């Protein structure tokens, strides 16, 4: 029996982890289990004042339990890959490890008052998106699909927390690993 693990680093509350877990439960045909992972401070880049998502992803892949089909980690640190200014999340395409960052999903990042509902919605969409990548899905041209590429929160807010018919059909055909 394989599970879809949702893991959080210490700065993420259990409630936020639960939100992410609930959003992916039932979407990928794997039961969800929750776990904790160590802090991601080792990936801090002082020059950029962000955390490198490649190093985080390597750690997540190492921590995958034997019964993990996939492991999606949640952090509150702002993530980047060297060539880009930031990423909302990062996953191994067709692999076992993925990570999402809540940092830029929060309204306060943009100087606005906190809003839990907005954060929950955005986190759910990003969790579906990165987990979709782990199952081999690439970006979708349908802008309302969870797999469409969002490079800013405005686009995250306009897409749905669900897959379009084509991506959904692809996931149903894909054998569970």
């Amino acid at each position, binding site marked *: 029996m394989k599970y879809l693990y949702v893991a959080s680093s210490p700065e993420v509350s259990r409630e936020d982890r639960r939100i992410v877990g609930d959003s992916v439960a039932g979407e990928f045909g794997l039961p969800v289990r929750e776990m904790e992972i160590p802090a991601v401070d080792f990936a801090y880049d002082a020059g*950029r004042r962000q955390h490198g998502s*490649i190093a985080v992803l390597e750690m997540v892949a190492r921590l995958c339990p034997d019964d993990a089909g996939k492991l999606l980690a949640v952090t509150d640190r702002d993530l*980047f*890959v*060297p*060539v*880009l*200014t*930031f*990423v909302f999340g990062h996953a191994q*395409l067709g692999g076992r490890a993925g990570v999402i960052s809540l940092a830029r999903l929060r309204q306060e990042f943009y100087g606005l008052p906190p809003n839990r509902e907005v954060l929950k919605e955005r986190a759910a969409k990003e969790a579906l998106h990165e987990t979709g*990548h782990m199952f081999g899905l*690439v*970006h979708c*041209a349908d802008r309302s699909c969870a797999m469409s*590429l969002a*490079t*800013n929160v405005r686009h995250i807010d306009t897409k749905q927390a669900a897959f379009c018919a*084509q991506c959904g*059909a*692809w996931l149903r*055909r894909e054998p569970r690993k």
Partner: protein
Amino acid sequence: MNNHWQILVVDDEEVMCESLAAWLREDGYQVDTAASGHEAIEKTRLRDYAIYFVDLKMPGGMDGIEAMMQIRRLRPEASIIIITAYATVDTAITAMKEGAQEYIVKPCNPEEISLLVNRIIKVKNLQRENTILRKKLNRQYVVHDIVTKNARMHEILELCREVASLRSTVLIQGESGTGKEMIARAIHNSGDRAPKPMISVSCAALAETLLESELFGSEKGAFTGADQQKRGKFEMADGGTIFLDEIGDISPKLQVDLLRVLQERCFYRVGGSQEVHVDVRVIAATHVNLQQAVADGKFRDDLYYRLNVIEIRIPPLRERREDIPLLARHFLERLAHELGKDIRDISEGALKLLMDYNWPGNVRELENTVERAMVTCKNHVLTEESFAFLAMNGLAGKAWTAPAGMTLQEMEKVLIVGTLQRTNGNIKESASILGIDRSTLYEKIKRYEIPR
């Protein structure tokens, strides 16, 4: 349809290279990486990349600008984006002057890079569509447009190149749907006559008298309704090529007229008394065995020898099965653009099914089959189910086309021969398909004197 475009990321910093490649792969592109300018050039020689991301500063004697210049010499149509961590106005100007399409500073905003690639791909899709439509409009096929990896076909294509600029008559023989006209156009377009027209005439489509006036033209008053002088196809093709399809179907009288054109390079319009001189290269094609038609007295031997100066026999698709996956993917790619469907590949199971089919209608049937499967396909990949109708067609065709007057024994012989061909002479497999044991099959092979 992102996966049709291949991207090469060139950067000596592995982490930069891989992170950009991974980002682009998530967008569905096929992405390769190169750690130096030299490696990028080597890879460019092997693959046709549509977009290059080239880091400006690279060690090893070849910086980004030099790599870009060499890439542009090899692939002038490729789009090159220079990336750098050190933006200065001078380097930006140099890069753009040397032909870079864009210049971006890393780390880049994800939105910027995504919009940039989308914009380039959009233009490339339009350019490709334009090329396809132009080719379709002008049917400007050249030899390298013919998709094949079959050794016999390569020999044919080499022969096409060799004879393209000669005036000699060419006779193309091959089953229906093997691409006889495409070969004729490739010969015409590869030779000195390319700027002049190639005129096609289907000899089987017209009655004798109509065909005569079509080919040679007619004078005013030559027959009822001929209210003005009309130029024939031979005159229209002057300086170029005339393609006479289904030449085996022309009448004895027209065979004589055609022989005269080939010998004298001149003819009379229907109802005319003045010789018309033309400089036309004749390429003829037929699906019937002309040599047999000569032996049977149905086709003039002198015309046959005049036509058969250069002979090209195109093998049927079932004799070049290795081309089936290649052609199927070629049609898929072209039709995806034409039909506007995001279908990206054909599954291995579906390809096996296509490979096993006998293709009586040859390449034309394969093209139509891929199109039909694509029209009803709801996913990104054509699977065995997409081609389910093929099995039905095959069964229907075989079940209902038995020629009249055939005995049961003759039918049995045909079935055994066909099954042995399909299994490449494998007795065990053939016996299993036919539902008999091996000894019975051996006995029938012996009785019907089936060669093995």
